[in-house]
């Protein structure tokens, strides 16, 4: 776009609020200033939903695969009669759990796309950021990763959770698009942090990608600037929303401020300064899950894939479970220096006898041998050599019993394994 046209368009854009009817004035044909602002916000939200659509297809198709495959499995097995009732029930439970994931996606999306209205807050930033990460995660999955740093305690700010989610998702998507598409994932990191600094809560969205050009930087918050300047198709790869001015308006409506710094020396940081809400204020939005903490890696060895899958089910919401059907392979992993925090070991191994396997574990990783929980079949009580060990034995698959046994073993074992693959 040539400079004179751009300048003319910018002047036109600046005129728009002035032409709008002021609230309370007579005249039916012109929208009020508030209505115009609301349509601009709505257009920006829709643009953001459009940018999320690829990721949303992933967020729905993935659990749908789990739903479909498990229902088909259950139907086939009911006809064939080769599976137990427990196996079929496990499959149906798996399908049911996956439908809840789809429901959560739809809930997040509709909360995101709705006009927030006059919600004075307070909003819990931890919960808002978690919602934003859920929304954008699939969209970013193949091109950037998001690192979040928020305090564990609720961080309450004034303003609507929905508006803040709108602003943050926009900023995170923009930050990700500042990286060239072929960059390895570990180098395309978007960092989101929130903390209280004195009398304000500061949220930062940072990237190390292509900076915003110096001549563009002073204008990024101007209404319709990006649409006019061809900013999105220009040098940075950033931005497709209507305008960052919408974001700034939303932040200012919450009594905060939005600033940007870019190119010093690389990357861009958007900073939101928000007024904290008093701790006594009612909490509108609770974190959907407990704050993430590093989970212990639990190695589970069972030769039956379906039994292994059910052990997975029992343990994976508490631990980072690494399942293996091959004890020989596990021994080679341990021999190669791979480390785990605990081991759940089936006693009915065939490839290698459980006794020889556990002996192998003791040679490569003695701390893991003591952090082992044995699984005994209800019909076959544990042999003498197992009963001579202090390790706990669990029969069947009672979830609480198994989780408790692993937790107790973890508490006894050495705290820091030598080598860990990243979670």
């Amino acid at each position, binding site marked *: 776009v040539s400079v004179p046209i751009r300048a003319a368009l910018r002047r036109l854009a600046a005129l728009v609020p002035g032409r709008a009817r002021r609230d309370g004035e007579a005249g039916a044909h012109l929208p009020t200033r508030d209505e115009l602002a609301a349509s601009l916000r709505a257009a920006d939200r829709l643009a953001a939903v459009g940018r999320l659509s690829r990721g949303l297809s*992933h967020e729905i198709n993935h659990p749908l*695969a*789990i739903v*479909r495959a498990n229902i088909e499995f259950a139907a086939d097995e009911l006809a064939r009669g*080769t599976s137990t009732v427990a196996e079929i029930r496990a499959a149906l439970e798996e399908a049911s759990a996956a439908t809840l994931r789809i429901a959560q996606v739809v809930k997040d999306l509709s909360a995101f796309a709705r006009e927030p209205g006059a919600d004075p807050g307070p909003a819990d930033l931890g919960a808002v950021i978690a919602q934003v990460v859920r929304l954008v995660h699939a969209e970013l*999955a193949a091109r950037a990763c998001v690192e979040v740093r928020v305090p564990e305690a609720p961080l309450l700010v004034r303003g609507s959770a929905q508006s803040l989610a709108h602003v943050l998702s926009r900023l995170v998507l923009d930050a990700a698009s500042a990286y060239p598409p072929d960059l390895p994932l570990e180098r395309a990191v978007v960092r989101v942090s929130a903390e209280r600094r004195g009398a304000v809560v500061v949220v930062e969205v940072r990237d190390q990608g292509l900076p915003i050009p110096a001549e563009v930087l002073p204008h990024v918050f101007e209404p319709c600037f990006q649409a006019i300047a061809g900013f999105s198709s220009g040098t940075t790869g950033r931005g497709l929303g209507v305008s960052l001015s919408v974001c700034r308006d939303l932040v200012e409506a919450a009594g905060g401020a939005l600033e940007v710094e870019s190119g010093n020396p690389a990357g861009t940081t958007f900073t939101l300064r928000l007024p904290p809400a008093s701790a006594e204020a009612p909490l509108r939005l609770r974190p959907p899950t407990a704050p993430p903490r590093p989970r212990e890696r639990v190695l589970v060895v069972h030769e039956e894939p379906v039994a292994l*899958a059910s052990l997975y089910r029992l343990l994976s919401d508490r631990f980072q479970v690494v399942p293996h059907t091959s004890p020989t392979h596990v021994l080679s992993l341990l021999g190669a220096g791979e480390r785990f925090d605990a081991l759940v070991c089936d006693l009915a191994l065939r490839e290698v006898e459980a006794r020889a396997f556990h002996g192998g574990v003791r040679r490569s990783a003695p701390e893991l041998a003591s952090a082992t929980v044995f699984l005994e079949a209800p019909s076959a009580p544990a042999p003498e050599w197992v009963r001579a060990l202090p390790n706990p034995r669990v029969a069947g698959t009672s979830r609480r019993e198994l989780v408790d046994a692993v937790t107790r073993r973890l508490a006894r074992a050495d705290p820091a394994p030598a080598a860990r693959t990243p979670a």
Partner: protein
Amino acid sequence: MPHVTLLVVDDDPALLRTFARTFGKRHEVLAAESGADALHVLRARAIDVALVDYAMPAMSGVDLLRRMAVIHPDVGRVLLTAYADLPELAELKGAQLVSAILAKPWDVAEVDAAIARTFQLVTMRRAVRDMRSGVGPVE
């Protein structure tokens, strides 16, 4: 359908469980939650066909498939993806990085067909390699 050793790689345990449940009675199914875990499994086990999810944290599915093509060329490569429309994926097939691309939610018959086709390809590739090594250097 021959009994094939499969490695399924996905960062979602629920999907791994589902896959093992669906295909575990016909094939040996091994599971890995990440690209790094998958490489461990590949070092230790003879795998016929690996089915790799596209979007995984740390090492992406495409990164893993590229590495496999170099380190384990004898293992069949199939890509799984829940993204409805990714034009760049078609190129992977064109570049012979994968023998099939399967969309989630999958159709069991389609997965079976892809596994059978890929396994056939792998068997032929192995036979050619064995013949080559059998011929030895020409004096």
